[in-house]
């Protein structure tokens, strides 16, 4: 039986390797950085970590409703498709930088993409 996506990608170690890279990329992107609170960076990092765990096919307890609630305020503040695409782009660049193979990157991006309507509260 083939390993799960989460196992192929490297599990919790891969999430740890990715989270700082990913968070650094979104914080340096002036178009999206204001959506990522910097008064509580540790809390913010923890949120990125659980998001990445889910996107990597790992264990998680996210529901679509959680995604909606968590982003509702940001949508009011103008969060839209272009921001979603930019953050997704940073996720893809992070995975490429870590040398994840193209097949697995495609699977991760598909999971991340599936959250679009919930994140944007549509």
């Amino acid at each position, binding site marked *: 039986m083939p390993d799960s996506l989460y196992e192929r990608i490297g599990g919790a170690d891969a999430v740890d390797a990715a989270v700082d890279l990913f*968070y*650094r990329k979104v*914080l340096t992107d002036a178009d999206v950085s204001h959506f990522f609170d910097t*008064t509580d*960076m*540790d809390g913010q*990092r923890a949120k990125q970590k659980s998001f990445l765990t889910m996107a990597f096919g790992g264990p998680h307890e996210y529901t679509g409703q959680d995604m909606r609630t968590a982003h509702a305020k940001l949508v009011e503040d103008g969060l839209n498709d272009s921001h979603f695409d930019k953050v997704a782009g940073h996720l893809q660049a992070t995975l490429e930088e870590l040398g994840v193979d193209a097949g697995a990157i495609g699977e991760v991006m598909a999971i991340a993409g599936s959250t679009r309507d919930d994140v944007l509260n549509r």
Partner: protein
Amino acid sequence: MAHIKFAARQHDLTPDETVLECLERAGHDIPFSCRTGVCLTCLMRVSTGTPPSPSQAGLRESQKEQGYFLPCVCHPSEDLELVSPSDAELYGRAIVSEVTHLNDSICRVRLRTATPLFYHAGQFINLRRDDGVVRSYSLASVPRLDDTLELHIKRLGGGKMSNWIYNDLAVGTAMDMQGPNGDCYYIGMEPARPLLLIGNGTGLAPLYGIARDALVDGHKGPMYLYHGSRTAKGLYYGDELTALAREHENFHYIPCLSGEEDDVRGALGAEQGRAEAVAMTAHSDLAGWGIYLCGYPPMVLTAKKLAFLAGAALHDILADPYEMQDLRRIPRE
């Protein structure tokens, strides 16, 4: 909706309300200070129920197991029955052994405890005055080097405790003391890694302790301590830090002035600008570094973000921001 029971009365929590707010609304007089889950002044214990884990962040494992939690950041999802820890559980006595005025706003206080306190330089203690006012101060002393606890206290407009300490505190006074608390201290696991220490104001106190703790522990990596102030008089302890740099070739002291004329700055050999800006310009790649940030919260937040973006891992950035509850409503002098 969760209920809380305290002192034989039951209270309903409104949505968004913390346990501390609920108890205050019900007329209970609960001691508090920072209201942000840092200072531990409002510490309580559950006798029934499990406090949510965010309300136990920063507590020692032994305290968590005993049900201690912080009501100021507690949003319970289940019913809780609460007790106030007795004073004897939390507070010990300390005797003031020295008060030295370092300049017209900062003084050094040394304290002796009846039994030796097990602590790390850079942690903080809470001092309680007889009228119940509690404030947190960071430890500049190092257990292996100093036989008293050393605090640096800056007197600021409106500061109830700091003005009293600066003006009236006498040697021999006994005070209630709780602690040590906090996780901003030297961990000797990687003696070769470079360390960056940035502080402003009396944020120097924990950094002075952390730096000496690292040096006496045999830290081999380079250490850079940036101390920032708007005015020249705020750069206290310059002689001590210069001497430390002379004794240890891996220790570097860089005073920074953001609000003085060139001639004043030149005479002190200080850099121009805010400590965090000067430091980040000098060290653009912080991957693998240990970072310590102590002082005014806006500086600590800015420096944390800059250090992270310069490559430091978040778990390698330790911070000890002031809490300034007396000062929030008071304009800067």
